[in-house]
């Protein structure tokens, strides 16, 4: 009897460990916290990429539109890949699209925009990456959706895709 219990316990332990590891294989290893959701956007200021005028984030957030902050760089391949989606989003009149150029050379960033088009109403620069960290970003590309009350409603970590695009459109329609 005792032997059977031990045998069963070992078998169940192995099954339990197997299930945990098996589930772990398919679980994304990108850590996405809920901490920033529904929080106010952190205030920041930086220079405009083209005019080099110092701008404050509060001046960029419009209270009649959803604001999208996209962190990008010319050296980032996924940023290049998602650019067409940003161009699509820029056509939506309910969206105010702001770019944050991450650790980039202004010359390369301008070239990138000139070649692929400018979806942003304003592009701020983040030469040392500290503004992105202040915002709570992990890397690039990263996209923050901010509602009319200056609250972060959604964060997309990584390259945007068609599904994300539809989700953003759904959010701004609300």
């Amino acid at each position, binding site marked *: 009897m005792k032997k059977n219990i031990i045998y069963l316990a070992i078998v169940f332990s192995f099954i339990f460990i197997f299930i945990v590891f098996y589930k772990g294989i398919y679980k994304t290893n990108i*850590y996405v*916290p*809920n*901490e*920033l959701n529904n929080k106010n956007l*952190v205030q920041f200021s930086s220079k405009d990429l083209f005019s080099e005028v110092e701008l404050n984030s509060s001046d960029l957030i419009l209270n009649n539109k959803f604001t999208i902050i996209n962190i990008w760089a010319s050296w980032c391949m996924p940023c290049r890949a998602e650019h067409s989606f940003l161009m699509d989003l820029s056509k939506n009149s309910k969206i105010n699209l702001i770019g944050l150029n*991450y*650790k980039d050379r202004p010359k390369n960033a301008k070239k990138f925009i000139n070649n692929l088009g400018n979806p942003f109403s304003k592009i701020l620069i983040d030469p*040392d*990456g*500290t503004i*992105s*960290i*202040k*915002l*709570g970003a*992990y*890397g*690039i590309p990263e996209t923050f959706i901010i509602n009319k009350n200056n609250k972060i409603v959604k964060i997309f970590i990584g390259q945007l895709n068609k599904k994300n695009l539809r989700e953003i459109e759904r959010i701004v329609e609300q």
Partner: protein
Amino acid sequence: MKPKKFILLIILSILFYYGDLTANNNNVLVDKISKNLRCLICQGQSVYDSQSEFAVSMKLLIKKKIKEGNSEKQIYNYLKNQYGEWISYDTEINKKTYLLWLFPMFLFIIGGVLIFRKVFIN
């Protein structure tokens, strides 16, 4: 050397030494804080160990925050607020982590009782 020049040289040396000392102290604090922070995009590395863009920018931000006069605790709280409790290696005791903290103690006590019974009672 004229006395005035000599005094000026001493003052400049003190200022230079003090500035260097402050910078060193700040760097020590940056290292200390970054060692206690998890690099969220790395595999098992602290912010201090990592050379990823995320970690490098975070170290710069910590340095800026120290220069602005923020205390160590304020910096931890700021980063926890932005990135969640997960960023810190020092897990706080709260209702979400009771099990994490208490379960090993519970196992330790159970193990102790079992050993005690085995050795002294049997």
